[in-house]
């Protein structure tokens, strides 16, 4: 099958026959979203708790120092104010705000409140009042005196002797806080320095990426209330409901049985909401006041005090022979983790682990780095998760190497890229903050992606031509990428399914749909196994009381990991249904076939033995041997009311030793204005292999969305800071994301490929698309002008300066 509309080309050939998977069914929440249903946290708060308290947070005006006194009495006296929280009246538990698995890989360098402030905007106090206005007025009445201390505002200064210390309290889990090092990584395969020295051709470059924010349309919002049974319920715009429950339970010392976290619909996350930022405050305030409490961050707070992408300075060296065969890859990362070490180790690890294995022909590889504390806003998880920064350095350096070798960049990449059947020692050496898991590539459409992408952008016709009209010159560039699909042997998802009497089903998943459409594609997977249309299944997700566990929406895990659980659960109840069908039809069925757990743990392309006896067909079970059929509804009535009564249901979990990478090739055509330095993306092509596209429309949306975010990151989005480290552009007016007219035409090319370890052949897709724009656009600027930019974003000022520098 091949589908080609303007802007979207989808090829799916040689795949197993499916009836729901591979079709663009409507999102199951689609009609509620397009009619503005009250489904987000603040909507629920407003409708169900009109008399709730509103929380506001006081941020630090200084980048570094100690609170010497804090007087909240005037704030507390203000009518309507119920509670003022500071370090004096809150739990002092050390924790990490990073919503990750257990054991937690980020340092315990955070407290609800503390005497020390570490960046402009750091939490000092919080007020809960009847109205937002009263809470804001109360913030002004809190009298704080600070003893300001010298700050470290540049990551390059952080490790210097005598640098001010951001965490002198020596937090648990930080690598070397006495030198501001939150995390450190050093893995080596072979002897990279010897290999570089012995290489016929070497190149060494440094690339610097910048502070940027996720900008989810809905800011972080959280609501907490104590229900009639004394249970504390948190409704939160989170990507990680189970991690919220675990971390809040630790901070407040509450049993998890008294804590319930519900994720309603959420207005975008992109990693920003893989973080426990306000859930602890509303939870504690609800306990203290007995009243429902809500915090909705303002857009300004979202910029200053939520999370950002880790800015990195990356030194990249490559050694090869004169024909371009890679011998050595060396990458050093200096990652700025701001005032707290949230995701500091794991993001930095991914900078190497999700990039270097793509070029597995190099035998000698070293990846090492330091994530350092500074008195600046706090980075965290952000779509791409370190790989985006890594590819900025790796793919621009390879482009320069191609120029040095007088080779076509596509050819250079092709001869060095990982292929089916191959692995990379980096997979095993480097995981997320700990040792990784060996991987062998089982599916890759990279050759097709490169060919189709080059054709779509017009590579042969345009490359090196420098077509010029007046002061505008054009060029084309490309880049190549991989990501992962969940964290192998760490990420776990679970799913429960049960059969209703009428032959419809209920699916409960822990997986967290943050707008991606995961509820929809997981429903499609179950429908595929059960031989019904997706609308025969009702799906509930992300409620720590009502659905099974899932680590949450991050690490490109949901399709692969949560999908694996859904496929297992659907197969389990299908086999239970087959078992009753055998009774009804009076046929013998080996009980081992139906009792044993469905095998999808590793490669799942093994034949399913039970399918040689029965198959599902549109609400019926059909006996392969006799051709007789019985309706699933009849089976349910029999099982629930008549004979051998029992519940047809199953809960299954999935964790995998595999994390099959999706692959991508990106191509950009740009026009550079010599006079102004403005770079315009004229055309963009994103070719991707995400295994089997469960829902092609949603795949396309993930890719275009990631590319749009990536182009903004490459060209316009940037934090500006005052001399004291305060962000000076915390609004959507001053921090420019792409609008409709800014968005260049993007052609998405999807080449499906059956991934044997994935659920119904699928791999991940949501993150990989953001890795392309910085290198592909940078390489296109180089093609157009011969000028290499080593720092993002490519703003007119930076481009013009580079062009002038080159003319000197």
């Amino acid at each position: 099958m091949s589908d080609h509309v303007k802007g979207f080309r989808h090829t799916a050939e040689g795949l197993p026959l499916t009836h729901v998977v591979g079709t663009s069914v409507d999102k199951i929440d689609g009609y509620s979203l397009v009619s503005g249903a009250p489904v987000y946290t603040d909507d629920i708060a407003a409708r169900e708790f009109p008399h709730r308290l509103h929380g506001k947070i006081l941020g630090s005006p200084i980048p570094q120092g100690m609170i010497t006194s804090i007087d909240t009495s005037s704030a507390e006296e203000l009518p309507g104010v119920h509670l003022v929280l500071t370090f004096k009246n809150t739990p002092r538990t050390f924790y990490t705000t990073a919503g990750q698995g257990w054991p937690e890989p980020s340092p315990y360098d955070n407290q609800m409140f503390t005497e020390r402030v570490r960046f402009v905007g750091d939490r000092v106090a919080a007020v809960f009042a009847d109205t937002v206005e009263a809470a804001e007025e109360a913030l002004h009445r809190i009298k704080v005196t600070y003893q300001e201390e010298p700050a470290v505002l540049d990551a390059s200064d952080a490790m210097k002797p005598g640098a001010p210390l951001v965490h002198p309290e020596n937090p648990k889990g930080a690598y070397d806080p006495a030198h501001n090092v939150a995390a450190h990584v050093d893995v080596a395969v072979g002897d990279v320095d010897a290999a570089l020295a012995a290489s016929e051709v070497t190149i060494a470059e440094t690339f610097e990426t910048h502070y940027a924010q996720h900008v989810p349309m809905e800011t972080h919002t959280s609501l907490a209330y104590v229900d009639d049974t004394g249970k504390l319920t948190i409704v939160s715009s989170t990507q990680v409901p189970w991690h919220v429950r675990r971390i809040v339970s630790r901070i407040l010392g509450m049993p998890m049985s008294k804590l319930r976290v519900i994720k309603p619909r959420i207005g975008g996350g992109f990693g920003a909401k893989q973080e426990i930022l306000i859930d602890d405050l509303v939870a504690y305030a609800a306990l203290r006041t007995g009243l429902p409490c809500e915090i909705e961050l303002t857009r300004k707070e979202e910029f200053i005090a939520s999370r950002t992408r880790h800015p990195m300075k990356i030194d990249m060296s490559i050694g090869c022979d004169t024909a371009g065969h890679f011998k050595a890859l060396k990458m050093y990362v200096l990652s700025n983790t701001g005032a707290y070490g949230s995701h500091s180790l794991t993001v930095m690890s991914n900078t190497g682990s999700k990039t270097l294995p793509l070029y597995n022909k190099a035998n000698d590889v070293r990846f090492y780095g330091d994530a350092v504390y500074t008195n600046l806003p706090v980075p965290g998880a952000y779509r791409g998760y370190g790989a985006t920064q890594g590819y900025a350095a790796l793919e621009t350096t390879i482009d320069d190497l191609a120029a040095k070798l007088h080779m076509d960049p596509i050819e250079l990449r092709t001869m060095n890229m990982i292929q089916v059947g191959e692995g990379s020692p980096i997979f095993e050496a480097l995981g997320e903050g700990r040792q990784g898991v060996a991987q062998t590539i089982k599916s890759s459409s990279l050759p097709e992606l490169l060919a189709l992408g080059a054709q779509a952008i017009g590579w042969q016709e345009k490359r090196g031509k420098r077509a010029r009209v007046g002061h505008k010159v054009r060029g084309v560039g490309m880049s190549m990428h991989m990501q992962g699909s969940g964290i192998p042997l760490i990420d776990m998802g679970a799913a429960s399914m049960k059969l209703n009497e009428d032959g419809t089903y209920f699916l409960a998943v822990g997986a967290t749909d943050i707008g991606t459409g995961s509820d929809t594609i997981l429903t499609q997977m179950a429908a595929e196994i059960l031989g019904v249309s997706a609308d025969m299944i009702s799906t509930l997700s992300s409620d720590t009381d009502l659905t099974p566990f899932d680590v949450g929406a991050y690490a490109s895990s949901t399709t692969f990991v949560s999908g694996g659980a859904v496929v297992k659960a659907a197969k389990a109840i299908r086999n239970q249904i087959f078992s009753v069908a055998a009774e009804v039809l009076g046929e013998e069925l080996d009980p081992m076939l139906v009792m044993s757990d469905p095998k999808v743990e590793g490669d799942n392309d093994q034949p399913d033995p039970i399918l040689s006896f029965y198959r599902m067909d549109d609400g019926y079970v059909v006996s392969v041997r006799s051709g007789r059929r019985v309706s699933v509804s009849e089976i349910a009535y029999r099982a629930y009311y008549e004979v051998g009564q029992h519940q047809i249901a199953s809960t299954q979990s999935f964790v995998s030793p595999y994390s099959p990478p999706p692959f991508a090739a990106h191509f950009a055509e740009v026009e550079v204005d010599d006079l102004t330095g403005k770079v315009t993306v004229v055309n963009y092509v994103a070719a991707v292999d995400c295994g089997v596209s469960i829902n092609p429309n949603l795949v396309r949306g993930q890719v275009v969305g990631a590319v749009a975010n990536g182009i903004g990151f490459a060209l316009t989005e940037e934090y500006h800071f005052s001399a004291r480290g305060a962000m000076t552009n915390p609004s959507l007016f001053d921090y420019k994301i792409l609008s409709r007219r800014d968005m260049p035409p993007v052609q998405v090319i999807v080449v499906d490929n059956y991934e044997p370890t994935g659920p119904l052949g699928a791999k991940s897709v949501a993150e990989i698309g953001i890795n392309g724009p910085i290198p592909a656009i940078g390489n296109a600027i180089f093609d157009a002008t011969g000028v290499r930019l080593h720092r993002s974003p490519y703003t007119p000022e930076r481009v013009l300066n580079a062009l002038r520098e080159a003319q000197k």
Partner: protein
Amino acid sequence: MRISITVNGAQCALDVDPGDVLLDVLRGADYLEVKGTCHAGDCGACTVLVDGHPVASCLTLAARVDGHSVTTVRGIGDGTHPHPLQKAFVENGAAQCGYCIPGAIVSAKALLDENPEPTEDEVRLAMDANYCRCTGYEQQIEAVLDAAEQLRKEGHR
């Protein structure tokens, strides 16, 4: 002060302070389909139609719409009886997180009321103030063009 507005065709008398903005007043009156995010007129999420014209409700004083007619996304259709624009957004996969959609759809509605056969560029221009962070816009723009075509067909019938 008391204002009288028509919201989605229904007469509505509301007590407001002179400084109250329409976004807060509408949400306070349970029109929760109007979503706010930047409260500065930068993002377009809170767009509603006042007498058919798109405005940022976060910057519009409620007192100024006294006597006027306000249309929210729910006023043009709901989940049971979707407007062709809403249907096209769902069918094109144009809504991901959905937070910007109520504003985007009413902006598109205003465009199509004025210009039933817009070009792609006209759609981009008319909806330029409606930021979306999820979709990269392509499928939303196609949805508006599809809906325009559908509406023209219905008009011809």
